[in-house]
């Protein structure tokens, strides 16, 4: 099935081209990764956008436009390169009762709902190894906290803006804290260093 999302290209400085690909961003990331285009230094997926980082002084590859057209929908991901993860979580986060209340659930209901989703890594950012997990039901799409916390412990499972994620390291955070997950999400000596890769699926398991 082809969704025929319209894509738009815009420059980010003179080193990158942003391609708006909506829900097909991961499909475009995988397609361009497989194409191995000359002059392309890195591909960086984000929320509905892919950034093609060019080698210094290089023009964008002429094939780029054709490759960014007629993208398959989000459901047609090649599965060979993706992995499934089960991550244990101790659901005792400070914001668990509040998030449950806002979703019209009790805390057990919220935990059950979180654990029954198949979440998918859309992109990484914010911290080394921080994966943005999509696939939350709409009743869990909450805005960020009005006041970010200055420090959130490593391993915190949190949600905001339609995503959930696990902080690989301690740091400031504006998302709602649901619990503490097992860590080990980023290891500079591993290849690749981040345990969760774009396209991977994640199931949360209540510890």
């Amino acid at each position, binding site marked *: 099935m082809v969704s025929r999302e319209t894509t738009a290209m815009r420059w*980010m400085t*003179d080193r990158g081209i942003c391609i708006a690909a909506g829900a097909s961003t991961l499909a475009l990331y995988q397609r361009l990764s497989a194409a191995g285009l000359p002059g392309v230094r*890195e591909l960086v997926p984000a929320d509905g956008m892919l950034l093609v980082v060019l080698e210094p002084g290089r023009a964008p590859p002429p094939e780029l436009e054709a490759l960014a057209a007629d993208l398959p929908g989000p459901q047609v991901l090649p599965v060979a390169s993706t992995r499934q993860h089960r991550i244990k979580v101790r659901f005792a986060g400070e914001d668990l009762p509040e998030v449950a209340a806002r979703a019209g659930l009790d805390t057990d209901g919220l935990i059950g709902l979180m654990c029954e989703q198949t979440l998918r890594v859309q992109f*990484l*950012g914010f911290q080394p190894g921080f994966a943005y997990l999509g696939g939350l039901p709409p009743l869990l799409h909450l805005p960020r906290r009005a006041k970010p916390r200055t420090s959130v412990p490593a391993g915190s499972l949190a949600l905001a803006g339609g995503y959930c994620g696990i902080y690989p390291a301690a740091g400031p955070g504006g998302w709602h804290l649901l619990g503490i997950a097992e860590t080990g999400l980023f290891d500079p000596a591993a290849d690749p*260093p*981040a345990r969760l890769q774009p396209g991977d699926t994640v199931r949360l398991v209540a510890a």
Partner: protein
Amino acid sequence: MIDVVRAGRLDLVMDLGRPGFRAQGVPEGGAADATALALANRLVGNAEGAAGIELLLRGPRLRFPEGGTIALTGADMLARCNGESVARGHAWAIPAGGELELGTADKGLRAWLAVAGGIETPPVMGSRSTFLPGGLGGWQGRALRAGDRLPLGLAAHCRAGVLGFDESDDALRILPGPQLPGFADAALKRLSDCAFRVSADANRLGLRLSGATLDYAGGELASQAVLPGAIQVPPDGNPIILGWDGPVTGGYPVIAGIIAADLHRLAQLRPGDALRFAFVTRDEAQAAWRRLQASLDGAIAWTD
């Protein structure tokens, strides 16, 4: 080896960066002025990508138990070795047990020290560059401290030569960014007409500016991948230029971006410094990049 006798303000082991890991949440980083580090390396006979030390405002005092050949580029930190003044831009031999004492730059902000053989700390994810926010790379993922002992690689033959310095105060050249259409004409006019100032909140992650606010009317924005030199505008309207270690994704609109040929000039901007922006065309940006690369070949006047 090198012993750190006294640390400077912020001494970071740096090479030309860590490309290939943005999709893992890790920016490319590397020397804030890649050209300055590459030229310092050339002066001491190293490969351009050898690791050196990036110095900020006030340099360290370093001892060379076995001696070594060094070169300094970037801001002038009034280096001295055993009572003699060490000029920037050429190789200098330090005798065994000699000490290199760096002072405070009175102009500019960063300098690069190359040492023959290169600093041979263990590479992390293919690079020796220090990435402070992630505590990785460089010397134990942190800035140097008194008592640190840095390993050096084997020195190659080093030619004699002198590097000229070209310090431009021209406007930083910019291209329209992806969210430029969401800014009113008045904001674009301010961006190109107003003088901005670097605020105290300026480091390798980004430089927050003051001087004029830019109003964005484009509505809520999803996270996009960003690059060093991108000019982001948070809700308060004061622009932020993303730096070398800045986050790989950001949720603020990007009004414009500094061209690759001018990015290194950010390395010398101090809090309080004034700067201006000037829009150029993509062709002009490309020509500027080619000129910068061509100028590197003739930058050092070899004298042997």
